């Protein structure tokens, strides 16, 4: 019997119950939300289960929602089951004051740099990461640039006139 989104959803609910929420299928991709402390358990379950076998981490990134109090930063994982060719997305929300999320590097080596990039852009602190430091920006940068409150342009530049550029 082929693996479908329904089957995956049923297996997840059977294992984790009410803790997983917001099951949706935008454009055919099963998406759900997990509590922050369970992200590693969910990924481990999806990895080890003989029927689900989500053993490829396609992408790991974050999104900043400044308006949702207590849930500002969302870490989004995209997983892929290569043998049955099914994709999955799940999110964990964390407040921006103390954005601690367990690292996935023990399970997927590819998460190493993806988590560093997420830390660099959003300040998400991945607990247990072997080398959590900035990767793309300069090491001395003090803020997390992708958060919505920070501007795109370098504010100290003198040769570009913001009024003429429509900003």
């Amino acid at each position, binding site marked *: 019997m082929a693996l479908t989104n329904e089957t995956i959803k049923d297996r997840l609910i059977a294992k984790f119950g009410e803790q997983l929420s917001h099951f949706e299928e935008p454009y055919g991709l099963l998406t759900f939300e997990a509590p922050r402390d369970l992200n590693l358990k969910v990924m481990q379950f999806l990895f080890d289960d003989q029927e689900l076998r989500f053993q490829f981490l396609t992408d790991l990134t974050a999104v900043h929602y400044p308006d949702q109090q207590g849930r500002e930063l969302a870490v989004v994982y995209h997983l892929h089951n290569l043998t049955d060719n099914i994709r999955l997305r799940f999110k964990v929300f964390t407040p921006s004051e103390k954005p601690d999320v367990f690292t996935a590097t023990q399970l997927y080596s590819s998460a190493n740099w993806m988590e560093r990039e997420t830390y660099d852009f959003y300040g998400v602190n991945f607990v247990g990461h072997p080398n959590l430091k900035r990767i*793309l*920006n*300069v090491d001395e940068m003090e803020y997390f*640039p992708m958060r919505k409150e*920070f*501007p*795109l*342009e*370098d504010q100290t*530049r003198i*040769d*570009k006139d913001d009024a003429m*550029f429509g900003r």
Partner: protein
Amino acid sequence: MARPVRFNIHPIQADIKDNISLANMPEGYTGEGFFASRLSDVVGLARKNSIWPMPFATSCCGIEFMAVMASHYDLARFGAERLAFSPRQCDLLMVMGTIAKKMGPIVKQVYLQMAEPRWVLAMGACASSGGIFDTYSVLQGIDQVIPVDVYVPGCPPRPEAVIDGFMRIQDLVGQESVRRRNSEQYKGLLQSYGIQ
């Protein structure tokens, strides 16, 4: 209705008379067995036809530069036969591509490692002024850190534009005065960049 571009479908036969150009002799006094000219002219003539560039390729302009170096647009005909990858052995620093703030100190260090006389060509919009990337992480032009002689605009510039920029460098090299590098104006320029 757009006019289709038709070059290279039916190429013209190559003619040897179109392919050879001779460098012009500098002005001077000639006589039997001697030729007197200005030192800067002769030295300039020799230097401008044998500039060894250092390609500092960072992004897309680097790939366009690879096309310039290849046989179709051949930069080697202009004397740039040997691409020196060490700054200590090159004359022209060609900065090709976006320079991020993380890369700025490295550009400066490579420039400092070059020996006089040295020239800099900024290829592409990103190296000239930051290009389309007016962001917190991109240096808005390499002239924030090193003095630049020629800017070649484009994103990426066509190979013909790169060759045109190179020819302008050749003009600068050919007409440079022998005293320029020790002059007050040049020293002032380097001081403004913090280079001793």
